């Protein structure tokens, strides 16, 4: 199908020259049924306009770099197939709810700070020496948190979340889901360190369960579920006499 073509409308924005972002159309060959939006952007960059800026790396849905708004929906562009949109045009815009740096590149500093604030690593009260052996964990114990550990920090959930869009103080879906991932890990002892962050008014209690974060997640994580379950758990800790346990 050498003659098949598709129109890509991409956001262009040069902070030194443009007052606000604008859309620019590119008509490109759609030569392979397996082409994804990222391939189209790479074609534009290599064959039409080398100044187009966007983030990408692995091309296989694991690095979480290439998230953009594709026809208004947050998607990993390496996982958005042109065949699902053709013959219609595809509009590619930077992720919603983040400051724009240039073209399709957003400023992710806010998310990175939030991610760090929930301490997404295993915390031990006292580290054992290596010689003491490994921490044992059963399959059932892994199942408790497995789906929340699939998060690749792609920030699609932040772009889909109207609560974050309206109030960017909100800790947000991925950070809370990852906090839950570590809090549910049988090897972790850091719950009390994370509680002040996740129990804050701008954290779990800001979420009103829109649920779109879970819809757009490319890895099948259910951050909305993590947030609501954390609400229930922290409430139980408060209400039950034995609730304040580690």
């Amino acid at each position, binding site marked *: 199908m050498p003659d098949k073509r598709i129109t890509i409308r991409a956001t262009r924005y040069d902070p030194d020259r443009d007052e606000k972002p604008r859309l620019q159309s590119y008509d490109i060959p759609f030569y392979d049924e397996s082409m994804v939006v990222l391939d189209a952007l790479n074609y534009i960059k290599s064959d039409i306009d080398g100044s187009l800026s966007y983030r990408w790396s692995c091309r296989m849905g694991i690095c979480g770099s290439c998230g953009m708004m594709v026809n*208004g929906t947050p998607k990993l562009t390496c996982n958005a197939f042109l065949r699902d949109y053709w013959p219609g045009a595809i509009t590619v815009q930077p992720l919603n709810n983040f400051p724009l740096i240039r073209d399709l590149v957003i400023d992710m500093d806010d998310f990175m700070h939030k991610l760090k604030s929930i301490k997404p690593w295993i915390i031990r009260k006292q580290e054992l020496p290596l010689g003491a052996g490994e921490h044992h964990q059963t399959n059932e114990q892994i199942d408790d948190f497995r789906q929340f550990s699939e998060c690749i920090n792609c920030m699609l959930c932040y772009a889909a979340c109207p609560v974050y869009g309206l109030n960017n103080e909100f800790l947000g879906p991925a950070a809370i889901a990852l906090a839950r991932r570590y809090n549910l890990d049988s090897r972790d002892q850091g719950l009390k360190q994370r509680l002040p962050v996740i129990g804050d008014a701008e954290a779990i209690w800001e979420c009103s369960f829109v649920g779109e974060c879970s819809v757009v997640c490319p890895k099948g994580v259910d951050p909305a579920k993590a947030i609501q379950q954390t609400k229930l758990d922290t409430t139980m800790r408060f209400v039950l006499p034995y609730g304040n346990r580690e």
Partner: protein
Amino acid sequence: MPAGWWTRKRHYFLYVVREFTALPLAIWLLWLLYDITQKTSTFGPAFVVFSIFCLPFALYHSYTFLSLAGSIIHFKVLDRPVSPRLIVASQFALWIGASVVIGFLLVWLAR
């Protein structure tokens, strides 16, 4: 965020509808509270009409609330997690059971 963000996606729209259905219920409750504090509580035709108007909102809100329970409630029986579908089904069963009991009591008390 543009003011019309909730019109951009069906999911957003249904979320706003879900949240909005709480508003008539809140007004209904305030009306009820006001009415029962009056010396001669009447529950006149206007209140009956408003109650009927509120019923679909109440049903929709309850339906969405209970449907989401499967995502929120999580516990294990014999070390195995209880399936969200079973949790939702039990919530609906409880809701129907409680409605029948309360309905029966109201009819019985009104005799």
